[in-house]
């Protein structure tokens, strides 16, 4: 039977020391067995490496930052849609999910499908609301407090012990060992990502992540847990290994069952010395290490596209344990003309 050909747009083509998931998602889509694909990259900056990976990305369009508003984004997609006839968009950044969720119906009217969490799910799992999330769903979460200014910083000493984690609302987290360091981290992170800042209890232990896919009705379509083996100074996994921790898988199934999560996700977990699992964060999108899931037998981006297209997807029930990913960086040689093309005309 002839496979359908889908035009799929993907964001997150950046690859700095905290890489975007886009290139990994595209690699997964290129290996999909249920459809063929033409890949459209969506970029925010002219130096996102995925733009220049012509063996993976067929064409790239720059899109406006989320701060430009949904009307500007919609206008850009009307232009792109006229040329590319997109079937699916996979947004891969936390910060862009809000406008994409808001535009989901309008984009659908244009023939573009997505498979995203609902606005309620997106807001509820936000790290700002983690305490309430933990209480509501019976999950261990580290104690956290949202702060908007430094006037109250001294009162943190009575509520938290050092070290404590200082987190940005979308990205960035630093460990602070003194109130001076809390202030410094507050200023640095809020200057980049805005307010509020989240102060979180530091949990000693081993870091694990789970990536997966929920069907929006409580069913687990995919789940792959991973232990971080090599962690960068930004806390990102530069190497990891798939594991088979039933407790972690059950926590994931419970998360999907109780929240009826729709879409891809990543759970950030910490296991303390007593074996207790703490949920540190829920990222409402696929992680940069998603290609490990493909490598162990669960092509999550492919399943996500099929769900977005309204197809029935059989849940994955198995994966290979003990497979590792080892990340590397790669210098591409790029003609200046290509850089000009994307910088000046916004497409390449």
């Amino acid at each position, binding site marked *: 039977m002839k496979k359908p050909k889908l035009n799929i747009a993907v964001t997150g083509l950046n690859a700095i020391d905290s890489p975007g998931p886009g290139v990994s998602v595209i690699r997964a889509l290129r290996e999909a067995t249920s459809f063929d694909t033409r890949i459209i990259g969506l970029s925010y900056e002219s130096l996102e490496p995925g733009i220049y990976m012509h063996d993976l990305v067929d064409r790239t369009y720059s899109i406006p930052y989320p701060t430009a508003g949904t009307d500007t984004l919609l206008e850009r997609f009307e232009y792109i849609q006229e040329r590319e006839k997109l079937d699916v968009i996979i947004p891969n950044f936390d910060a862009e999910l809000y406008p994409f969720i808001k535009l989901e119906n309008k984009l659908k009217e244009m023939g573009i499908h997505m498979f995203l969490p609902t606005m309620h799910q997106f807001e509820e799992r936000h790290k700002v609301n983690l305490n309430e999330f933990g209480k509501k769903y019976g999950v261990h979460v580290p104690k956290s407090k949202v702060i908007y200014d430094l006037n109250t910083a001294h009162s943190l000493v009575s509520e938290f012990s050092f070290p404590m984690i200082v987190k940005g609302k979308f990205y960035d987290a630093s460990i602070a060992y003194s109130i001076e360091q809390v202030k410094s981290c507050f200023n640095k992170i809020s200057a980049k990502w805005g307010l509020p800042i989240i102060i979180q209890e530091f949990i000693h*232990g*081993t870091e694990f992540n789970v990536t997966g896919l929920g069907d929006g009705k409580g069913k687990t379509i995919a789940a792959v847990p*991973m*232990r971080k083996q090599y962690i960068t100074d930004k806390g990102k996994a530069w190497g990891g*290994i798939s*594991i088979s921790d039933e407790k972690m898988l059950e926590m994931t199934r419970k998360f999907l069952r109780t929240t009826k999560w729709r879409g891809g996700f990543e759970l950030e977990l910490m*296991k303390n*010395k007593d*074996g207790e699992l703490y949920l540190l964060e829920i990222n409402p999108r696929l992680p940069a290490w998603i290609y490990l899931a493909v490598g162990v037998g669960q092509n999550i981006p492919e399943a996500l596209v099929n769900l977005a297209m309204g197809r029935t997807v059989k849940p994955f029930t198995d994966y290979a344990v*003990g497979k590792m990913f080892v990340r590397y960086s790669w210098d591409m040689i790029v003609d200046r003309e290509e850089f000009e093309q994307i910088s000046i005309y916004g497409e390449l």
Partner: protein
Amino acid sequence: MKLKKNIAVSEAGLLFNPVTGESFSVNPIGTEILNLLREEKTDEQIRSAILAKYSTDNPTFEKDYQDFIGILSHNNLLENHEETKA
């Protein structure tokens, strides 16, 4: 003393705990002892097997063996330890 069933031991002496994702490397004698533990040999049987094969005395074996078992136990690789501990 039993090695957990799910612990993988390669011929080259690499242990992998699939629950925690931890890996450990052991030397050839360590690998031999792990294989004997796998076969559910008793401490006495392991002692006899090692003393028969290598030129070492009983006190030295006993000390090294207990150290080795202690390390396995500390890293939650033996059957009588809780699966959940990191």
